[in-house]
């Protein structure tokens, strides 16, 4: 046994991005020793710099495959691209948070520290090469998000969202953990490479203990990405949590959950594909149907976007169910496109909302065009993109996901996906119609777009259109998202 262990630079490089992000979070906490005015003003900038700096180790490792810390963590094309998606999510989150947390009186430096901690957990999840690391990184991101959901701690809705998310989240974690325990017994190890070897060589593949473990792991992670039938927490938590936090977790937690699902199921359980592909097929179909159909009935934009995010988890699951390289690339592309269109839509929700989380009914978007033409136009773009209409990134994302599914001969799933997309056009278009065709309420004042929030809106809208018109570059990048086979 190796009785002493000194981390080497090569080990640190594998987890470079998450280390830098976590270090930035600690720096924010330390900065609070300074007068409150300075530390509050500095926090978003430290956070942004930390996220930008996390790109340095990503470009250093590139798509090369490296493992570190006795095989606990791994970096490859897939991990680096997912980390890049998460870092951009973080930057945009900061962009729309500064205005929001001042308005809602939540302006405390810990907000940014917790966002960064959550991102470091999400990044670590994309790099986990051992199930214990999957569990730990899931807890790092979840605990940060539990606290962030309850960040408006005097607001009953926020408190309840926090409690519900916490109870159901730790319930799911317990399933994941029990699944890990069963896999440990069935395969004799919980390193992803070791499980794959055990399945390939020792005939562990047919051991029901291992299969049950894999199932429980899928349940635990399914909760995190809000796949049906584990979605029941989503609408309430998304509605009750502060809008900026909801936006952040609807993209970040989803991306991290899918990163872990893809890595665990395509590497460790890759050889027993035939056992889990049908189950995933059904979950993907159900998720698309339930998310889109229930979204139609919503009158509150936060709840509508919550169901929309369930529906989108369904489309991403289609890429995963295909279980091929095209599916993985499509998954990365989808998450990248989803990040811009969804965060953009939430930025408009934040802009159009009023203090105390008021003004989230869809009716309060009546005539938004007359109150702020730019925001209404951007929202139109995001709604088109979320519905999957050309020429937006949302269309290309769905196109790639469906073509990966066709490669895997999943015609039925593609048909369900196309039909549910048609349903979704209805509720997304309703928001657009309301914004442009109706007159604003007589007492509604014009909304001004200022500072970082405006920049965030412009960036997300531009990126959404860019990905629809010229998807080639990102698609090439996504093609590099290969998961290292152990």
């Amino acid at each position, binding site marked *: 046994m190796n009785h002493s262990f000194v981390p080497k630079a090569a080990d640190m490089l594998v987890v470079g991005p998450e280390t830098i992000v976590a270090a930035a979070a600690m720096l924010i906490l330390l900065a609070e020793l300074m007068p409150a005015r300075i530390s509050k003003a500095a926090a978003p900038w430290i956070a942004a710099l930390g996220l930008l700096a996390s790109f340095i180790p990503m470009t250093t490792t590139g798509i090369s495959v490296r493992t570190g810390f006795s095989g606990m963590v791994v970096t490859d094309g897939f991990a680096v691209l997912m980390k890049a998606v998460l870092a951009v999510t973080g930057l945009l989150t900061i962009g729309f948070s500064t205005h929001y947390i001042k308005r809602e009186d939540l302006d405390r430096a810990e907000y940014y520290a917790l966002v960064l901690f959550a991102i470091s957990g999400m990044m670590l999840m994309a790099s986990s090469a051992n199930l*214990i690391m999957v*569990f*730990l990184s899931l*807890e790092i991101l979840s*605990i940060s998000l*539990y*606290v962030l959901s*309850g960040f408006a*701690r*005097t607001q*009953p*809705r926020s*408190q*309840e*969202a*926090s*409690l*519900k998310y*916490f*109870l159901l989240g*730790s*319930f799911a*974690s*317990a*399933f994941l*953990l*029990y699944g*890990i*325990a*069963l896999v*440990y*017994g069935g395969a*004799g*190890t*919980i390193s992803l490479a070791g499980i794959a070897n055990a399945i390939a060589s020792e005939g562990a593949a047919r051991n029901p*203990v291992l299969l049950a473990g894999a199932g429980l792991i899928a349940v635990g992670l399914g909760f995190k990405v809000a796949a049906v039938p584990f979605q029941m927490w989503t609408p*309430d938590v998304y*509605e*009750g949590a502060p809008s900026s936090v909801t936006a952040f977790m609807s993209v970040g937690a989803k991306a991290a959950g899918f990163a872990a699902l893809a890595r665990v199921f395509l590497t460790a359980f890759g050889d027993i594909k035939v056992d889990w592909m049908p189950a995933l097929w059904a979950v993907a179909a159900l998720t698309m149907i339930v998310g889109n159909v229930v979204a139609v009935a919503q009158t509150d934009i936060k709840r509508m976007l919550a169901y929309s995010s369930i529906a989108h988890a369904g489309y991403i699951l289609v890429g995963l169910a295909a279980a091929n390289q095209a599916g993985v690339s499509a998954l990365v592309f989808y998450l990248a496109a989803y990040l811009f269109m969804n965060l953009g839509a939430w930025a408009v929700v934040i802009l159009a909302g009023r203090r105390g989380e008021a003004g989230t009914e869809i009716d309060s978007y009546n005539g938004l065009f007359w109150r702020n033409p730019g925001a209404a136009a951007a929202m139109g773009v995001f709604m088109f993109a979320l519905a999957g209409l050309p020429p937006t990134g949302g269309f290309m994302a769905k196109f790639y996901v469906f073509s990966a599914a066709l490669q895997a001969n999943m015609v039925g799933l593609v048909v369900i996906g196309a039909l549910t997309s048609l349903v979704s056009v209805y509720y997304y278009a309703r928001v657009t119609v309301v914004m442009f065709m109706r007159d604003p309420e007589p007492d509604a004042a014009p909304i001004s777009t200022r500072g970082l929030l405006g920049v965030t809106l412009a960036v997300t809208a531009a990126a959404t259109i860019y990905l629809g018109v010229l998807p080639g570059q990102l698609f090439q990048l996504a093609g590099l998202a290969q998961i290292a086979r152990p």
Partner: protein
Amino acid sequence: MVPTAHYVILSALLFTTGVVGVLVRRNPIIMFMSIELMLNSANLAFVAFARHLRSLDGQVFVFIVMAVAAAEVAVGLAIIVAIFRTRATIDVDELNVMKW
């Protein structure tokens, strides 16, 4: 020596008790304790498998799980205390601002 399978069955019994507890009870503190029951059943399985495999890895996992559970408990109870400060009930069914 008691076969490992017996320990796995015991841990399955405890795990199921925890699951039913979370689903049946509406008191967040008891739901939360049921979750602790589930985590502990996983720990029992880890330790039993560790002996079966003659490998200490399983015992290290238990160590890590305990630390995670401690972090979860701290945050969970803080959320409950924060709620209780603004109102006098923490029965999930009586939290009516949102639908469950």
